[in-house]
Each structure stands twice: as structure tokens, then as C-alpha cells.
């Protein structure tokens, strides 16, 4: 069975387009929503500064990884992920949720296509 792993990974690497980008879109959507939640709780004084800084850094790194793994970076979802990454660390939770919501819409439309 182990022969399937490299074969599958090779096939996945060869496939291009929105279908292949769906996992990255889904992860970016979740990261945007996590960022919004962190900022919301930080604004409410429920988190430590160190935790908030570390979470924001991790989220940015993960978003960067997802963005660079897109097979079609010049696409509506690529633009949306770039817009999300352009937000400042302490962005308003609603602004971040707005990006996550748009990515969710794109994700849903691609899944139903």
C-alpha cells in the first residue's frame, strides 16, 4: 500500500486549478476566522500579549504557506487571500471575518461546481 503515497502526491502535484486549490482555500478561510477570534478575545482582555503575538505570527506563516501553494495565485481566491494577508496584525475582527466569509463563499461555489 505504501507505493500509493508517492503516486498520490505526484498526482496531486500535477493537478492544477481551483479544484486542486480547494484545500488551501479552506485552510486560508479557517486561518482568517481564527485570526478574527484571536483579535476579538484579545480586545476583550482575555488573552496574554505573548499568546496573541505568537498566534498572529503562526497564522501569518500558515497563510503565506497556503498562498504560495496555490496553483492559480491570480484568481479571485488568490486575491482574497492576499487581501487577508495585507491586513495589519491588530485588524478589526469584522474585517477579518469579512475576508473569511468571502473565501467561504468561493469554497462553497467551487465545491458545488
Amino acid at each position, binding site marked *: *500500500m*505504501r507505493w*500509493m*503515497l508517492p503516486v*498520490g*502526491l505526484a498526482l*496531486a502535484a500535477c493537478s492544477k486549478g481551483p479544484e486542486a486549490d*480547494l*484545500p488551501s482555500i*479552506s*485552510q486560508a*478561510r*479557517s*486561518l482568517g*476566522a*481564527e485570526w*478574527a*477570534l*484571536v483579535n476579538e*478575545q484579545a480586545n476583550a*482582555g*482575555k*488573552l*496574554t500579549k*505573548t*499568546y496573541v*503575538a*505568537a*498566534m498572529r505570527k*503562526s*497564522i501569518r506563516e*500558515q497563510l503565506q*504557506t497556503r498562498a504560495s501553494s496555490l496553483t492559480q495565485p491570480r484568481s479571485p481566491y488568490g486575491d482574497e487571500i492576499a487581501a487577508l494577508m495585507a491586513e495589519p496584525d491588530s485588524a478589526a475582527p469584522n474585517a477579518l*471575518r469579512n475576508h*473569511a*466569509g468571502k473565501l*467561504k463563499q468561493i469554497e462553497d461555489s467551487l*465545491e458545488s461546481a
Partner: protein
Amino acid sequence: MNPLELTLGIMTAVGGFVDISELVFAAKAGSMFGYALIWVFVLGTIGMSVFGEMSGRVAAIARQPVFSLMRHRLGLKLGLITLAGSLISTLITCAAEVGGMALILNYLTGLPYALLAIASVVALMASMWILPFQWIERTYGLLGLMMIVFALALVAIHPPWAMVASGMIPQVPRGLSPKELLTFSYFVVAILSAVLFPYESYFYSSGGIEEGWGPKDLLTNRVTCTVGFGLGSLLAISILAASAQLFGPINVSPEIPGSSALEAAIPFGRGGLLLALLGMLFAVAGAAVETCMSNAYAVAQFFGWEWGRHVKPWDAPRFTLAWIAVMLLALLIVLTGVDVMSLVEYAALFSIIVLPLTYLPLMLLANDRSYMREHANKWLAKGLGWLFFVIVTVAAIAAIPLYLLTSGGQG
């Protein structure tokens, strides 16, 4: 039976039950499928109790460690293949735990990840060198009890208890698309693997031999495996249920291990956050020690070397070198910069594949009256043992196709 020893044993089992994989999969499962995957934790915990009890009983009666059995029961060739598979899967798991520790310390201190990974390994190795077996087990297990904050957080956020309870019944949610059904199946396999990690029974049974268990300890073994593991599993279920309540509705499917700590911060603020992070840190550190020592136990038992922490490190030199090598290799993997979440997924994937081969010889010995005399498996243990063997075999066959078809649970 000493009540204090029993209580400490149960508490240690509770605090030591959860590891980085359960943290990750429970939080993701809850956010993606609500309460519908709770039953997999229940099923996996019953399986873990069955195999844990069996491995403890074999340790107490036959005084046989798992990998010594494996060599005799499977033969040298198949035994070596199983040993190699177990070593790889447990090493990946150990690396995931070390990476998890560094991440959690990063959330607590803000210091660089690589530096914290090195510091974690130094601290773990020092504790393994200095502390006797029982203290290693208890220190991490008892400190891991801070994870109880997740159970308290669940109560505080008032989840729909009827739905939480209904999640304990085996089910597949209605209306899932074929793709979602595959992702659901992937999580079933991943959670089963995370709960039934083979290192847990290697460590548990080797620990029984380290502590000189005999027939008088069978009740302690049974109570620890049922009550201790059961209560420990409730912590993982609390993380899942709180994730379903807090993360699912706002489209968060935690991509970062630190997100789970938000479950305690939302109801309890900074105090809850710190308790959650510290509980996670010690639970994950305990799992790092267990995985590291399990690999050393496996190699030493398979090749018949002197082993154990009941002797001084220099009195079992090859065993000591083995656990030092495992810990350093785990650190090397972490320092390559590989993502902890990916390590967690690989660990679950490889572990479920080797699981049937490690459980089969254990079960055959526990069934064997010539070794186990009146303590051999009775009808209930035999029936449950075979049932779970079939379940883990099916899960092992399905694991790689599901991983590939769902991009590691991403859908």
C-alpha cells in the same frame, strides 16, 4: 491494593491520556462535524482499555514485554518488519510531541521555536536521566491534569447536552456529500489511530514490568485502564464538544495547535488560557517521554538487551543510548522546520498501519492458557479483542487511500 497508589495511578492515566494528536484531531473534528464524531473517541477508548488491560495483565502474569512476544510469535522476519514500522511511526509521533511542546512554550514565552525545541529536549532528557520510572510517569501525568480546565470550560459554555450525549452513539451525519463523507471517514480513522497509538501499550506494559507487577496488581491494572483511560478520554471529548460549540459556527477549523487553548480562554479569560496551555504542555511532554522510551523499550526488548529505568542508565547502556538517540532524532526532525500539524497527520497515518501487527501477538499471548494460566482472556476479553483487531485492520487498510483522497482531512 493501596488506595493512594490506585488514586495516583488513575490520575496519572487521566493526565497522561491526551497527546498532541488528540488535541489536534478533537478540535478539528468538532469544528467540522459538530458532535457527530464523539462516538469514535468512545470506541477508541474502549479499544485502548481492552488492549491496555491485556498488555498490563500479560506484563503482570507472563512477565513478557510486547516486543519480546512479537519476536517469538511473529518470527524474526515479520517481527523485524513490525519493529521497523513501529519505530518509524513512534519516532514521528515523538517528533510531533516535541514540536508541539516547542509551539506551546512559544505561546507562553514568545521565545524562538527552534530554541524552545532544543530546550524541551534537554529538559525531557534530564528528567528521563534523573527520575525513576514511577516519578517520570507521575510527574507528567499529574501536571497534565491541568487539562481538566477544558472539561470545566465545556460546562461553562453550556453546550446542548442532549446533542453531546447523542454524539456518543455511532453515526454518520445525514446529508453529507461524497467528499464530506470521505473526510468524515478520514477523521474516524485518524481519531482511532490517535487514541489507540501503539506506543501507549508498549509503554504501559513495559512500565508494569518496570514496577514489578504481579497477580496482586491485576485489579489496579483493570481499574487504571477502565476508569483512568475513560476519564482521560473525557478531556479529549470536552475539547471536541467545545470546538463544535465555539469554532464550528464561525468557520474555524483549527489549523494551529494553540487554537484549542481559546476554548478555555473564552469562558475563563487569561487564567483559563494559562491553565489550558500548561496542561497541554505537560500532557504533550508526557507523551514525548512515552514515545521516546517506547522506542527504546521496543529495540531493547526485541534484541534481548538489558532495559528499563529501574536500573541506573549506565547499567543498561544500549537501552540508554537508544532513548537518547530517539530523542535527538526527534529533535532533528523538528529542526528541519517541518510543520507540526503535518507531523501529527503522518504519525496517525503510520501508527494505524502498524497497529494490527503489534496487537495480534499480544492478544494471542493473552489468550494462551499455558502462559497466562487462569488469567488468560475469558470470552469477553477475547470477543472485544478480536472485534477491535478487525476494526483496526479495516482502519489500517483504509488509512492511506483516505489520506490521499481528502488531502489529509482538508476535503
